[in-house]
């Protein structure tokens, strides 16, 4: 494992890194184009989604496919709380919004937190019965559950405005909100995973019978993980709704879950730093691949712009990745200062050896 850095040095390095990222974001917010800022916001929100799904899927080993459902709950709840009263009257044409939702308007932060809490509450209600299932059955149950939430959103006209969705959501989400919440998510989930609770969750993933025999209340720990993951999914949904400013049930179809699952698997199922890397690569990569959708020249060959081409290329890239890197970029390892330090010292030694 090589030499270890002391805790003080690690703390200092982490603080410096956070300050550096914060400064870069501050500069970007001041100088970058609107497009770049949008991508940065999306990146942060995708990190929230991916890290919260990692807690459920990768660390605890509950193969949940219902993440989009909790994102939908977060998005709808927060929007209904922040949308101005006049806007609500204009939006709900077919059936008016029920009382008291049509009378209240809250600031963004409380709306986000309430959205997270309600998503967590749903997570609790869902987890209790579906965690009696295991493996593939649990995956199917959670998939169905996510779809159920979407279909309810599609039909509950007096709450969600049905298939018409909600429009003109105030664009509250900015770099500070999205990255602030992303930092909070990573901090909470990483501290949890590094603690005794994290070891218990991993033990459940490895062998739930042995975990039971070691005195762990497997069921309540699984529920805890699911609820916490749902909370951050709800928060992410709230941020997302206030970024793209229109939501409708179609945006929360199961493809949304799979999108997040791709990020998580790309980064390495069971690694938080992997989820962050996966979410970042996926968000930025998808934008870079946009060139494929406009006409371009490759040598002498002219390519016409085909919409949707980038998804084809992305899929091929993912298949290649899975062939050569079955456990994703990070596997189950975490990026840590020790790892980086070991890597750097090894490199330096090598170079030193060559010079001699």
């Amino acid at each position, binding site marked *: 494992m090589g030499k270890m850095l002391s805790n003080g040095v690690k703390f200092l390095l982490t603080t410096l890194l956070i300050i550096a990222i914060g400064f870069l974001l501050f500069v970007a917010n001041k100088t970058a184009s609107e497009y770049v800022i949008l991508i940065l916001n999306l990146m942060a929100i995708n990190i929230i989604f991916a890290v919260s799904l990692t807690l459920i899927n990768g660390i605890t080993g509950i193969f949940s496919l219902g993440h989009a459902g909790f994102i939908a709950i977060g998005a709808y709840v927060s929007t209904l709380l922040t949308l101005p009263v006049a806007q609500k009257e204009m939006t709900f044409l077919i059936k008016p919004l029920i009382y008291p939702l049509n009378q209240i308007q809250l600031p963004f932060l409380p709306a986000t937190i309430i959205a997270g809490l309600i998503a967590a509450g749903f997570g609790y209600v869902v987890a209790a019965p579906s965690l009696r299932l295991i493996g593939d059955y649990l995956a199917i149950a959670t998939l169905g559950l996510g779809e159920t939430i979407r279909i309810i959103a599609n039909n509950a006209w007096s709450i969600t405005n049905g298939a018409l969705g909600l429009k003109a959501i105030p664009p509250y989400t900015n770099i500070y909100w999205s990255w602030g919440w992303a930092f909070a998510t990573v901090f909470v989930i990483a501290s949890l995973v590094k603690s005794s609770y994290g070891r218990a969750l991993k033990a459940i993933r490895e062998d739930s019978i042995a975990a039971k*025999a070691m*005195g762990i209340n497997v069921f309540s720990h699984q529920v805890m993980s699911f609820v916490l993951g749902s909370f951050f999914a709800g928060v992410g949904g709230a941020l997302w709704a206030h970024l793209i400013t229109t939501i409708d049930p179609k945006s929360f179809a199961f493809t949304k879950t799979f999108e997040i699952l791709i990020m998580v698997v790309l980064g390495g199922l069971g690694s938080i730093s992997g989820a962050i890397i996966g979410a970042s690569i996926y968000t930025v990569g998808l934008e870079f691949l946009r060139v494929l959708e406009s006409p371009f020249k490759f040598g002498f060959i002219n390519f016409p712009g085909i919409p949707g081409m980038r998804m084809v290329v992305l899929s091929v890239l993912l298949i290649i990745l899975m062939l050569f890197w079955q456990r994703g970029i990070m596997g189950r390892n975490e990026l840590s200062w020790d790892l980086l330090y070991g890597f750097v010292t090894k490199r330096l030694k090598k170079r030193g050896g060559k010079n001699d």
Partner: protein
Amino acid sequence: MTEVLRVENVTKRFGGLVAVDHFVGYARQGELLGLIGPNGAGKTTLFNVITGMYAPDEGRIVFLGKDISGHKPYEITRSGIARTFQNIRLFSDMTVLENVMVSQHLKLRSWLWLFRSIAKTPGSIRMEKQMHKEAIKLLERVGLETFASEKASSLPYGLQRKLEIARALATKPKLLLLDEPAAGMNPQETYELMEFIKKVRDDFSLTIMVIEHDMKVIMGICERIYVMDYGKLIAEGNPRQIQSNPAVIKAYLGEEVLL
């Protein structure tokens, strides 16, 4: 000597099959007990009933004067019964140290610890340090400290068995149930295991119950032996009595046919 465990008329049925049939037994403080019988006799099922993996259909299990029948496995472990498994069930993708530390998680009984751990309060950092120190100490006592940061799955087979016992010890049990600890071991490893079990019993002042097919182990270390066949208790006694017991010989070798 005080009685640690009493199994009163315990029966466990799976459909029409009676896996454990009105089993009666007890364990006294500090005893090293053997539980033997032909394959399918119900030994592991009895362990599973004692540790709460199954609830008994009839009868009750009394541990340290308290009725624990039907309690959940994690509750039973917390009250002081730990076990190992017939087929090794380590947390294979975690390190040796983490495997042992998982067993200390039961110290954090209140959910307040969850918030303390996330907020990294001084109390939770102290707790984490203490868990780490105790786990290292335990690994030193069983001679696994050099492997602390290795993955559990990378250990040789014999040491994996040992780690499973260490992990069970980390729950601070009063009664330890070992399910075929010598399975798949060579004679040298088996000999070392026998010494290890005796040492563990004395060092940790435990009561130990062993299921084993290797008679050398059973006769070598056990002070009292229960013999099961078809779910029923057919004999009980010290190694010498068991070896000459006609019912036991019949169960293992079949009946003598006089021509």
